[in-house]
Structures are given as structure tokens and as C-alpha cells.
């Protein structure tokens, strides 16, 4: 539509039209944002509903199991047991299922996720707030490092394609992607930790050294980095290969694009061409993949954190499953999904910001 406006127009006095153009572009941009946000909301709604179904309605659901358990253990009446479970899950035992559903929905929106079953009185959301930041820190820095490194190495491979360097990096990349991330974790423990003795893996349990005082002081920060180091390395190593290979093929196709050739003919400096012309365009497809990767890596955190005994959300989820702490489990799952959706939202919006074409066509 924009391109069909008459292009042979008088040169001056077009401020009015310019404004309109700005407006429409801006509007469409808002639309892209709008659409992405709507999708995120729908996803969250669906998952919250799904979780409700899983916990309340599915045969053999946790609520029935718990009631059964209390009945057997304490020999109280069914109603009493039911009320007690309802209190933990924070729903009104006398309401209809539909009302409970709306109630649950409202609770989630208010981030009220009930109280822990195994340690009564502890609010699940408080526990999550304790664990989540560590996971975000480790996964976030791991992804960020591997994304940036992958872009740089992938471009290097494309610029030196078919050289020995490219072949070696390709082989490494295949290894890095092929081997599952928890296998990398175990390898890191066995090789770096035990055989080479570079890290005292046993002492790196948790997220920081309890002898330090949390806050902005050097010993604390150092211990935080120390504890997160191995998980971060694992996230980096297991995702780096994918970015490298993707960036390589993407760069190779961009290098064939006209505008790179023209930029060279325009006498632009190499540094400018590599960054703003090749790098920027070649990395665009990677942002789409980032959305898949975020969910995957956050999800794999459950095993990785367990392997390194890193006390993040994954560790908390696993702990609540082994102790059958259903309310915690449900809360962590919902928060995990919301985190993924939110991270995807940010990636999507960043993409829209980086690629002007998306703002108009609304598609990737």
C-alpha cells in the first residue's frame, strides 16, 4: 500500500502527507506489538486453564490423591480432609468447579499461588520469588553469551568458509548441538571437576557461599559467579553450536545479497559492512529461533540445576515433585510458562524493533 502511493509528486509542501505516513507506519507497528501481546495472553490463559484441569479434574488428580492420603493417615472425615486440602490450594471448597476456575484464574493474576503442602504456611509465590532470579540469571547469561558468541563465530565461519578453521568449527558445532545439555553437564563435572580437579564441585552447591553476606560486595558477587559458572558453561556449550551453524548459513546467504555487494562498491569501511549490513541482517533469523531456544533452555534447567545442585526454579520444581508438594509444583509450572511466554514476547518485540519490515507486514 505504501509503495503504491504516487511517487512522482511535487517536491515541497508535503508535510501533511508525511505526518499521515508516519502515523500509519506507527499504527502498524503498534499492531505488531499488539498482536504479539495478544498471542502471549492467550497462551498464558490456555496454560493456566490446562493446569487447572490437570490438578483438579483429571482422574487421579493431586487433590483427590491428597485427600485420600490424609484420610488414610489421620482418619478424619472426608469433609475435613477436603477442607484442609482446599485451604492449601487456596480454593473455596463449597464453590462450583466453574467458580473455582475463575477464582484460580484471579489468584494467578494476583500471583497468589497458594501455600506449600509440605511446609504449611509458606506461600508458594514467595518461594518462587526466591528461586526464580537465580534461574533467570544463569539461563539468561548463558543464552546471551552463547548467542553473541555464536553470531561472531558463525560469521567467522561464513567469511572463512571451506578453510580448515571453518571445518574445525563446524565439527565442534555439530558436537555441541548433538550432545544433550545434561550430558555436557555431567561431562563438565567428571572432566573439569573430578579428573582435572579445576573446580571443587562438591563445594559449589547452592547459588552462593552462605558465609558471604548477600549484597553488593565483592566476596558475594564472586561466590555468585562461581556457583553459576558451571551451569552457565553448560548452557553456553549446549546452545552455541546451534547459533554458530545457523549464523553461518544465514551469513552466507546475506553475503550473496545485492546490498552487501553494493555497500562494498560504495566504499564503506569493512567494519561498517560487517556489523550494520551483514551482521545485522544475518542475525535476524536467529531472533526467531531465540524464541524457541528460550523455552527449551529454561525447561532444561530442571535437569541442569539438579545436576549441579544449583538452587534455581528447576531445582525447586524437582524438589516439589519428589516431595509431592502439588501446590508448589503447580505454581512453579505456571510461573515457568509465564516466564517463557514473557521472554518470547521480549524476543518478538526486539525482532520487530530490529526488522522494520515486520512492523508493516506483521510477519516474520
Amino acid at each position, binding site marked *: 500500500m505504501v509503495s503504491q502511493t504516487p511517487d512522482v509528486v511535487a517536491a515541497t509542501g508535503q508535510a501533511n502527507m508525511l505526518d499521515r505516513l508516519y502515523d500509519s507506519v506507527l499504527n502498524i507497528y503498534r499492531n505488531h506489538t499488539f498482536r504479539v501481546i495478544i*498471542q502471549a495472553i*492467550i*497462551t498464558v490463559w*490456555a*496454560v493456566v486453564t490446562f493446569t487447572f484441569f*490437570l490438578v483438579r479434574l*483429571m482422574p*487421579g*488428580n*493431586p487433590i483427590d490423591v491428597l485427600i485420600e492420603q490424609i484420610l488414610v493417615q489421620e482418619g478424619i472425615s472426608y469433609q475435613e480432609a477436603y477442607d484442609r486440602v482446599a485451604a492449601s490450594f487456596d480454593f473455596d471448597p463449597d464453590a462450583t468447579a466453574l467458580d473455582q476456575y475463575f477464582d484460580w484464574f484471579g489468584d494467578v493474576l494476583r500471583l497468589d499461588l497458594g501455600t506449600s503442602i509440605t511446609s504449611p504456611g509458606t506461600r508458594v509465590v514467595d518461594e518462587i520469588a526466591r528461586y526464580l532470579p537465580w534461574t533467570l540469571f544463569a539461563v539468561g547469561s548463558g543464552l546471551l553469551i552463547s548467542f553473541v558468541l555464536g553470531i561472531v563465530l558463525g560469521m567467522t565461519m561464513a567469511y572463512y568458509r571451506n578453510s580448515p578453521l571453518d571445518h574445525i568449527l*563446524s*565439527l565442534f558445532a*555439530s*558436537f555441541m*548441538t*548433538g*550432545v*544433550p545439555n*545434561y*550430558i555436557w553437564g*555431567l*561431562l563438565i*563435572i*567428571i572432566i573439569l*571437576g*573430578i*579428573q582435572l580437579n579445576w573446580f571443587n*564441585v*562438591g563445594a559449589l552447591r547452592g547459588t552462593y557461599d552462605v558465609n558471604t553476606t548477600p549484597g553488593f560486595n565483592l566476596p558475594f558477587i564472586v561466590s555468585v559467579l562461581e556457583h553459576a559458572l558451571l551451569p552457565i558453561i553448560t548452557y553456553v556449550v549446549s546452545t552455541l553450536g546451534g547459533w554458530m551453524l545457523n549464523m553461518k*548459513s544465514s551469513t552466507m546467504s546475506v553475503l550473496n545479497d545485492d546490498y552487501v555487494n553494493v555497500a562494498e562498491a560504495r566504499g564503506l569501511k569493512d567494519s561498517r559492512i560487517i556489523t550494520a549490513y551483514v551482521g545485522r541482517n544475518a542475525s535476524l533469523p536467529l531472533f526467531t529461533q531465540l524464541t*524457541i531456544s528460550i*523455552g*527449551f533452555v*529454561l*525447561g*532444561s534447567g*530442571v*535437569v541442569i540445576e*539438579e*545436576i549441579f545442585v544449583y538452587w534455581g526454579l*528447576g531445582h525447586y*520444581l*524437582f524438589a*516439589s*515433585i*519428589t516431595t*509431592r508438594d*502439588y501446590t508448589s*509444583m503447580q505454581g512453579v*509450572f505456571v510461573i*515457568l*510458562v509465564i516466564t*517463557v*511466554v514473557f521472554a*518470547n514476547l521480549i524476543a518478538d518485540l526486539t525482532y520487530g524493533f530490529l526488522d522494520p519490515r515486520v512492523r508493516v507486514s506483521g510477519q516474520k
Partner: protein
Amino acid sequence: MSVINSIFSSIWNFIKRISKNKAGFVGFIGLIIYFIVTFIMPSFVDFDDEPKLDEITGPIGSRIVLAVHVDDVDTYKTMEDLEGKTVGVVSQTGGPIFIEPYEDTVNVETFRWNSRRDGPGIQAGLIALANREIDAMLIFSKSVTEYIDNQEDPELRQLFEDNIAISNPTLGPPHLLGTDTQGRDIATHIVHGGRLLILTAVLGGVISTMIALVFGSLSALFGGVLDNVLTALTNLILAIPRFPLLVVLAGLISFDNTLFLGVLIGLLGWPALMRAIRAQVLSLRERDFVEAAQSLGLSTTHIMLREILPNMISFVAINLIFSITFAMYEQIGLVVLGLAPISDYTWGVMLYFGRTRGTLFNADGASMALAPVLAIALFQVCLVLFARALEEVFDPRLRSAV
């Protein structure tokens, strides 16, 4: 005859094409080796199920050796040399098992294993040997170091050093990959531990791929409401991190059946591939031959099966391989966490025990975790290399879904 010929020649062609891509060829050979090791070798190698108390976390290559009195070093070297002599073994170790075939020709003196690790069983045997009460003793190579070299009692140490020598350090067959926390041979576990894992992963991968294929083609061929619904469903499932979902499901419905787990993984694993297949079918639909078929009024089923599917075979095959790697990833991930069945002794279960029994942190026992780690890692790498090579061999334009 000619059928066999043509089959052979097409296989040969395929091998020639894949061998152009070095990495892919390595992957291909690797997969063949894996097939032999995990599917054929189990018929020839028995699963070592015998706990052996003195062989716990034996290092790679450790085995039963023959200890004799220093004066007999040149006399007794094999079991044949010991005909009619007295040979000591320790109960609940590899000794009694090893000596079974020779029980008619030698006298066996059994020393009782004591529940203590440095129990008097071995010690008593060695003392007896040093005093020439018995002629030889079967002892595990790792135990020799532990009981003779590391002996803390100076008197005993002196006694052992003066009187005992190893006359045959390679008497028993070696444990190629060492022994686990129960003294069982890890190599036999590796041989037996792959089949179920691989079959389950293939099951999961096939289910995912089938669903993706059906949904993707339906979506692309019929469009409209069906397409919208399927696409929305796909996006939704894609937004849920799959592994935590499996973990939560494992917490709600305990997975006690490996095959069921495979099916479940398959049922959750199709969305990314469905998108890719939908795009493929959409683009194939635009091609001339499909349009021609449509204009001839051929049915959609016919077009799908006869025109479109044959053109997607390689694409689907490649993505099937990737699906298998994902199914394997998830399955083993759950096992490592202990949330999936550990009754069958697979590589994943070996990892689980390696982790929970702490051999990970024991330099001698590293192989209990390291062996399955490498078995899984190399298998996945072979699959990925092979799939990438197929991608290049078949059609470089077709890119995988992930």
C-alpha cells in the same frame, strides 16, 4: 537375483553419496557400529548381573590376577599349572565365579568375605598364601593394590611384601570399562543398555513425525478453519516448555512403563515439525505437477500420497532423525532425574545410578557415569552428523525444522 542386485546397487549408491560428506560418513559408520553393539552383540555377551564385593568401582581394564608365593612365581602361571594344588578364593567376589570351571582339577579354599570393606576374607587368604598354607590365590587386580600396597599394619605389610608376588597379572578377562558400584562389568551393561533406549526414542520420534506429517499436510491441503485450529494448537503447545511439562506429568502420573513414556514423548513432540511440514506441503502444492494433478480432478488423498509425499520423503526422513534425538533427550533427561522407569538397565539408568551413587565424584569409578555419557553423546552426534549429511545429499534447499 536382479532384485537383490538392484537393492545392493542402490545401497552402494547411497553409501557412495554419503561418503562424499566426511562428517556424514563418520556418522553413518558410527550408527552401524551402534547397531551392531546394541542389537547384535547382546546375543553373544551376557549381562553381568553378579555383584562382586571386591570389584566395586574397578577402574578400566581391571581384572582377576593370580597371586602366589614369591618362590612359585615361575611355577604357577596358569590354572593348568595349578592342577591338584590349593587355590584360595574369597566368597561373594569374582573368584568363585572364575574358578568354577576348574573345580575338578584344583582344590578350592574359600575365605569368607566379611561385610567390612577391608574384611578379613582377603586378608586371611593372603596370610594363608604368605605362609604357604595355600598355593595360589585369585584376587582382583584393584584389591592387590588396596590390600598389599596400601596395607597400614607394618607387620602384615612386611609379610605380604616378602612372600607374595603376582605371577600372572592377566589371568581373568579384563573389565574393558571397569566395574560399577556393585562390581559388575560396565561394558556388558553398555552392550545391553542401548536397545530399549533407542527403540523407545525411535517410537517417540516416529509418533511425533507421523502426527506432524498428518496435521501438517491436512493443515496445508485443506486450509480454512482446520488450518487455523491446528496452527493455533501448534503455537500453543510450542509455547509450553516441554521438558518441565513432562517433569510435572511424571509427578502426577508416575511413569512405570518405558514404552508408555516413549508414546507420551511422541505425543508432545510434533509441533515444531508440523509447522515445517505444513510449509513444505504449501510450497509443494504450488508446483506444476501438483497443479496438473489437481486439474485432472484427482482426489486430495491421491495427490497427497502420490504427488506430495514422495517429494517430501527425504525431508521427513531427516526430521525423523532429529525427532528421535529429541525423544532420546527427553527420555534420558527424565531417567537422570529418576522420574522415569529405572527397572530396565539402560544407559540412562546407568547415569542415574552413577549420579545417585556418587561414582561421578570418584576418580576410580568415573567410567560408570562416563561410559553411558559417551555412549549417549556419541550416538546423538552420529545421528546429527548423519542427518546433516542427508540434508546435503538429498537437497540442500530443504532445511530442517529445528
